[in-house]
């Protein structure tokens, strides 16, 4: 499958002021392979790839690329334009699309098709549709980018890069925003590209993906390349150890992946005393007698649809994690916002247990009243909702609780705010341990820890955890999962909404699937597997009625 060397980077050094992003990183990618570049957040993966894509000139080392069928040529320090012309294109983690333009208009931006003086949009749409069909990246070219879901926007990004003639496609954390069926779709697309002779470099820190899709793996840590291996010879645990530099507990350890790779059976998941394993979890409904969150006949409208959430009822009991799986955009966001009071429901009731355990109907109450009743909320988008990025860590640690940090008469009590921050930073190991830094300055994992520390560090009965580990590194995922298990052991009711099926399966006592605004199925954690859930998530099953 793999052929001649397509890209060779040797001894890449890249400094940004005092920070060294790449300290002698190497990468060799063969043409016609899918190459996984793995490492924790901050290991220097993105920087290395940006050097390859021509966005940064390296401070040291060489970049060689096979361009125009001439074999390897030294292209160190080339421009983005030159890289694109040579067929090296990068799809970024943060989308670079114009929201007010359509999909087709975004794709042709910079190389507009013209008919006379005007744009030939019909032809552009036709071209885009063809490309979309050919690659399997399905998206309607006439829709506005601002109307797209995150997953769809990403498809547009990939399409755009391919449209511009990329033969070496670099993808930076592409699955962070995708559901498993979407991931599978993406894998199909990437395999098709590979089979047609294209080369794919995939930046990721999700190990199951690495095993799933790649042929070769390069592992980075602290700016250096620390390993390179054939995927066939690799184990998730081995890669994780190399990435982090120590043993880690993986969420996937407790989950049957349907396939095992490499050496040996998975080791038993270490359990702390007091944690409840999902494998031992009770079956739906029956054994959790004390509901802490009850949602009845909830319908929630959105600007697009009158019934974005369509008559949904469920309960979450104390000491239980109910996982909601589903492709993004099937009403999960609206469900979360309706429960937390951020969005008005059109009908139905929501009840939350207060600190005494009594269920309170909060349907007509506002966000603060619900939080005061006992609702904690880890929002799915920490940069939009979960944090005020310009605020200090200390100020972010009281967001939503600010009325509890006043010394009477609405004056903030800075002594208590500081001591609260010091405590949370210590307990939740937020780094760097400096409460006066703006939240913006922290890494994604540490930003998420601020949110987790705030929402789980206070008194609560019900926790809505939406995408709690999105975009955070392996070490932090381990930590966050541990916190969720601990909260469950403490008798909290947890509603877990995640696009990461591995996470849902690893943590949930029960798993429900949302499709088209409805809960199409609810299963005991023991019954739920990727294979069982898949058809429900795509609507192939469970929607007949």
């Amino acid at each position: 499958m793999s052929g001649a060397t397509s890209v060779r980077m040797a001894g890449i050094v890249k400094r940004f002021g005092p920070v060294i992003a790449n300290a002698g990183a190497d990468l060799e990618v063969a043409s016609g392979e899918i190459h996984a570049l793995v490492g924790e957040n901050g290991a220097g993966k993105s920087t290395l790839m940006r050097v390859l894509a021509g966005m940064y000139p390296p401070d040291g080392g060489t970049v060689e690329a096979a361009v125009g069928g001439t074999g390897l040529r030294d292209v160190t320090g080339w421009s983005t334009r030159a890289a694109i012309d040579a067929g090296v294109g990068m799809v970024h983690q943060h989308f670079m699309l114009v929201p007010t333009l359509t999909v087709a208009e975004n794709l042709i931006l910079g190389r507009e098709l013209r008919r006379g003086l005007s744009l030939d949009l019909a032809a552009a749409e036709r071209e885009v549709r063809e490309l979309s069909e050919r690659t399997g990246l399905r998206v309607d070219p006439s829709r506005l980018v601002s109307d797209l879901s995150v997953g769809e926007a990403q498809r547009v990004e990939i399409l755009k890069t391919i449209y511009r003639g990329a033969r070496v496609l670099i993808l930076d954390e592409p699955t962070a925003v995708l559901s498993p069926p979407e991931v599978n779709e993406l894998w199909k697309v990437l395999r098709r590209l590979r089979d047609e002779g294209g080369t794919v470099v995939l930046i990721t820190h999700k190990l199951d993906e690495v095993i799933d899709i790649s042929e070769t793996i390069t592992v980075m840590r602290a700016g250096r390349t620390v390993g390179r291996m054939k995927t066939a010879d690799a184990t998730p645990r081995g890669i994780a150890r190399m990435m982090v530099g120590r043993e880690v507990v993986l969420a996937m350890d407790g989950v049957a992946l349907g396939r095992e790779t490499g050496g040996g059976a998975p080791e038993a998941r270490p359990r702390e005393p007091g944690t409840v394993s999902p494998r031992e979890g009770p079956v739906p409904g029956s054994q959790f007698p004390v509901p802490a969150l009850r949602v009845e006949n909830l319908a929630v409208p959105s600007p697009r649809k009158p019934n974005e959430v369509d008559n949904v009822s469920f309960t979450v009991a104390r000491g239980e994690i109910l996982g909601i799986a589903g492709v993004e955009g099937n009403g999960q966001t609206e469900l979360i916002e309706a429960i937390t009071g951020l969005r008005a429901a059109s009908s139905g009731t929501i009840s939350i247990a207060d600190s005494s355990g009594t269920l309170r109907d909060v349907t007509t109450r506002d966000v603060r009243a619900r939080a005061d009743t006992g609702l904690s909320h880890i929002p799915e988008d920490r940069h939009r909702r979960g944090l005020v990025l310009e605020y200090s860590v200390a100020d972010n640690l009281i967001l939503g609780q600010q009325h509890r940090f006043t010394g009477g008469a609405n004056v903030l009590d800075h002594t208590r705010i500081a001591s609260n921050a010091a405590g949370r930073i210590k307990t939740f190991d937020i780094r760097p341990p400096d409460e006066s830094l703006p939240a913006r300055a922290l890494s994604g994992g540490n930003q998420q820890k601020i949110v987790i520390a705030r929402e789980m560090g206070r008194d609560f009965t019900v926790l809505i955890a939406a995408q709690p580990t999105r975009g955070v590194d392996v070490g932090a995922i381990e930590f966050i999962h541990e916190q969720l298990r601990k909260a469950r052991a403490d008798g909290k009711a947890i509603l877990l909404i995640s696009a990461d099926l591995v996470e849902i399966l690893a943590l949930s006592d029960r798993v429900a699937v949302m499709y088209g605004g409805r809960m199409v199925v609810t299963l005991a954690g023991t019954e739920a597997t990727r294979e069982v859930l898949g058809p429900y998530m795509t609507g192939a099953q469970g929607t007949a009625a």
Partner: protein
Amino acid sequence: MTPRLTNRAAGDRAQRVRTHIEESILPPLVALVIAAVVGDILIIIFGQSPGDVYRQLLEGTWGNAYGFGQVVYKATTLTFTGLAVALGIRAGLFNIGAESQLASGGFLAALVGLAMPAATPAAIAIVVCMLAAALGGGVVGAIPGALRARFGASEVIVTIMLNFVVLAFLNYMVAAHIHVPETLHTPEIRAGAVPRLTGVSSMFSGSAANMTFLLALATAASVWWYLFRTRPGYELRAVGLQPDAAEYGGVRVGRVWARTMALSGMLAGLGGLNYVLGYKHYYEEGFGTGSGFLGIAVALVGRNHPVGVVIAALLFATLSQGGLAVNALVPKQMVDVLTAVVIIAVATAVPEVRRALAAARRRPSGVGNRESGIDDTRGRSDSPFPIPDSRP
């Protein structure tokens, strides 16, 4: 109870403080230098020596008691309007209506002052007039705030339009009903004049500077305290920075908008006291013309910080008074041009200088510093589609 700092952490903090100071002081300074250079060119065009003109400008303002007092007097109104605009911007609102809020505050203060018998104790009369000024400005500010909160109407449009409506209404009231014959001002208030600063110190002799300046300073301190030390201030800033996060934090965003616009109007309205109570003791058509709009520039140059606003108000007041002082050498309009150049220079140079500062310190994307956990990769935009930073 903050954690004990290691030397290194303390060093980091000192570094940050230094960074903060650099970012606050350097950009406006660069803007001023640019303005001065443009000023030099203008002065040379008029055939004068820049040194002479600037010397005269300084002597005519900070260099003598009257000039200095006039600077203080002018800075007083600008501090109020600047604070009004700055408070709005902190909540993500652009109040362009300070002009009419100022007039409305002054008008109501004059009306209420007229209605009080001359024998009213000064302390009571002054307080009542203050409340009237705040009310007058507050009502004009509250309307666009309520419309924004209730219907999502842009406060920019509504405040601009209200400027016309309110000023026309006030002019009509004065011209048609309560003016002293042959003039365009109301009769003089006899109760509760605010004492001039002249009596306090000879520094201000002969000028219009009055105790309202102290009120302005106290108001700036109060606004600072409100913004940075109270819960409503915490919520207000959160609304301005990230309304979605504020909403998540249990803040009723619409209410904050409504409240902030009312407060902003009140601040501008209080500015009316400076003229009405402190100087002329009557309301006169067009007494504060331009001060409302200049308040926008004051807030901009003062970076929406109460301390910055006071300093910027003094700067613009100096330029305004200085225009009169240099009138013999160059047309006083030259100083108006200079004022405009300062505004343009601040608007353009400040972001550029800050960017340059940031670039000098730039950390890489997705990088590294595992020890510090610092990651500056995120775009500054809150949009789900951040505009890429293409600068290398």
